């Protein structure tokens, strides 16, 4: 079992120390660093690239949710809260992992075990949007999406289609289609080009979900996704697609 690089984010020093102490006995956890607010957390994420965030929800300035929304890719996250009815309801409704303070050692152990199990399936990276030389987002990575009261950790492998909506991008996964506050171009720069294909000004396709590609008009191609959605490619991108295919 690999050691999880863990970042503790909480505005109270005593709370951070307490988590550190509770985790001291586990040899499958390495505390990579600590942060007292969202800004510190972002810096620490750039520096340490943690596998796991233990994240307090209530912090001065930006909340834990705000922080996640500002990351291009989020690692595994376990929320920690003292008592916040709204946050707890959100965790319950969206089936997110969370712990309540004071943290029970057994509950913490269980939460870490769950994360370890998930790590066997996928190891999402943590990527701050401000990274200068950003690592590429792969299908294993996940983004945090918040749409009103609902929120998800969405693995990019599950996203069929990215659709431009001004400064926002609409994600299509499962039966959901929420917006994230990122432009399609920004995402194109980050996404792994072998897996995610810019089909037009409007769309990025997840090639894993493409069932069929057929000629549409003289110089255009049309992709059909496994859910039946048909996406028209631009002329230029159709040419690129043909070139890549013939290679």
């Amino acid at each position: 079992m690999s050691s999880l690089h863990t970042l503790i984010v909480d505005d109270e020093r005593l709370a951070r120390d307490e988590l550190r102490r509770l985790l001291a006995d586990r040899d499958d956890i390495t505390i990579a660093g600590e942060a007292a607010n969202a800004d510190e957390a972002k810096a620490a994420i750039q520096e340490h690239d943690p596998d796991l965030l233990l994240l307090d929800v209530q912090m001065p300035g930006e909340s834990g949710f705000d922080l996640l929304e500002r990351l291009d890719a989020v690692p595994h996250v376990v929320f920690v809260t003292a008592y916040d009815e709204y946050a707890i309801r959100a965790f319950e409704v969206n089936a997110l992992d969370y712990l309540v303070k004071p943290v029970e050692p057994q509950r913490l152990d269980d939460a870490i075990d769950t994360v370890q199990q998930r790590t066997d399936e996928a190891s999402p990276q943590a990527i701050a949007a401000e990274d200068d030389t950003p690592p590429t987002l792969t299908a294993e990575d996940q983004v945090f999406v918040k749409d009103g009261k609902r929120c998800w950790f969405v693995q990019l492998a599950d996203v069929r289609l990215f659709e431009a909506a001004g400064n926002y991008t609409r994600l299509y996964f499962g039966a959901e289609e929420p917006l994230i506050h990122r432009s399609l171009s920004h995402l194109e720069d980050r996404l792994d080009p072998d897996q995610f294909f810019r089909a037009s000004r409007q769309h990025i396709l997840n090639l894993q979900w493409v069932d069929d590609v057929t000629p549409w008009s003289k110089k255009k191609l049309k992709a059909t996704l496994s859910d039946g959605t048909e996406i028209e490619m631009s002329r230029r991108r159709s040419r690129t697609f043909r070139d890549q295919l013939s290679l």
Partner: protein
Amino acid sequence: MTRTQAYWTCQLGGWGLYVVFRIVLSSFFSAGTWERTIGFVVLGTAGLVYTHAFRFVVKTWGWTWLSLRRLVPRVMLAALVISTLSHCTGDVVGRYLLELSFYDEVESGGGLLLASIANGWILSMLWSVIYFGVHAVWNYRQAEVDKWKLEAQAEAARLQALKLQLNPHFFFNSLNSVRALIAEDPPRAQRMVTRLARLLRTTLQVNDVKTVLLEDELVTVRTYLELEKVRFEDRLQYRIDAGEAARGRPVPFLLMQTLVENSVKHGIAQQQGGGTITIEASVCANGDATRESAALGHDVLHLRVANPGTLQSDQRGTGLQNAQERLHLLFGEAASLTVTDTDDDRVVATARLPGRPTAPNPAAPSTFDSSTSPARDVK
């Protein structure tokens, strides 16, 4: 069985029995004829129809909720009307429409008329006694149910208030801090537990105590702030500045505490660098000549709690609203509580209180014994 079903069962059954009873009774005195039978059926039907109409009147005007003293004369009069109408109907239908021969046998003299109406009156009164009796029982039962419902509601409201007062977010965070301190600084952890216990004890008596001396309220506030200092460390500073005269004045129990909690929650906890909470209390001469202000008396107690930050819309939350209501309930409408932004990026809550609580409001629970011996539990 619904109430309507019960009514119709009694109504049809009762009048049916009445008719049968009259027929059987009359057959003892003279040989029963079908004409007599029809006569009694007519009378019984008239009674059924008129009492049913009476029920409509009773329901429309809500007579079942009248006091006995107001109900009895109304019912007695109504019974007279019903019996007169019944008698006339029987007479008109029996004698003239059906031309029943036995009406020829009886003379329609004054004495007999009176006897017939008196008979009908007693019958109508009997009907009313049953009808209103049943309703009285129903009303009583409903009142019992309502009473329990109200008590349950009041209990729920009390629990909600207690939860609000307890500030669960603060308590769980504090417990978390204690857990961390036990390893780091055991003597400090011990002090913290003692303070938590003291604050919890104070909070739990929220229903028994209405007002306390400011001096005692400030003890609670200080206990609370010391606990929050463990959590926020250098991020929380506070200053309490209360004059001698102000310290001896009564204030609503936990009013200051609510204001200070708000300051921590919306001020300190939202600032990455934290800040200072200033608490000031002073007694000022009332220079304001408006009529509203006059109700505050000569010496007005000013309470001010200030924290860094700007006023958020959600800062006018339930806690503050409750505090405002309680202040008005205890110290009259002239007392005020306002929260405003200042130019130097601070939020200030200001309360203005008269010298003593207003006369107990009969609608509000009011035991002011705490203002005479307030130090009893709080210290």
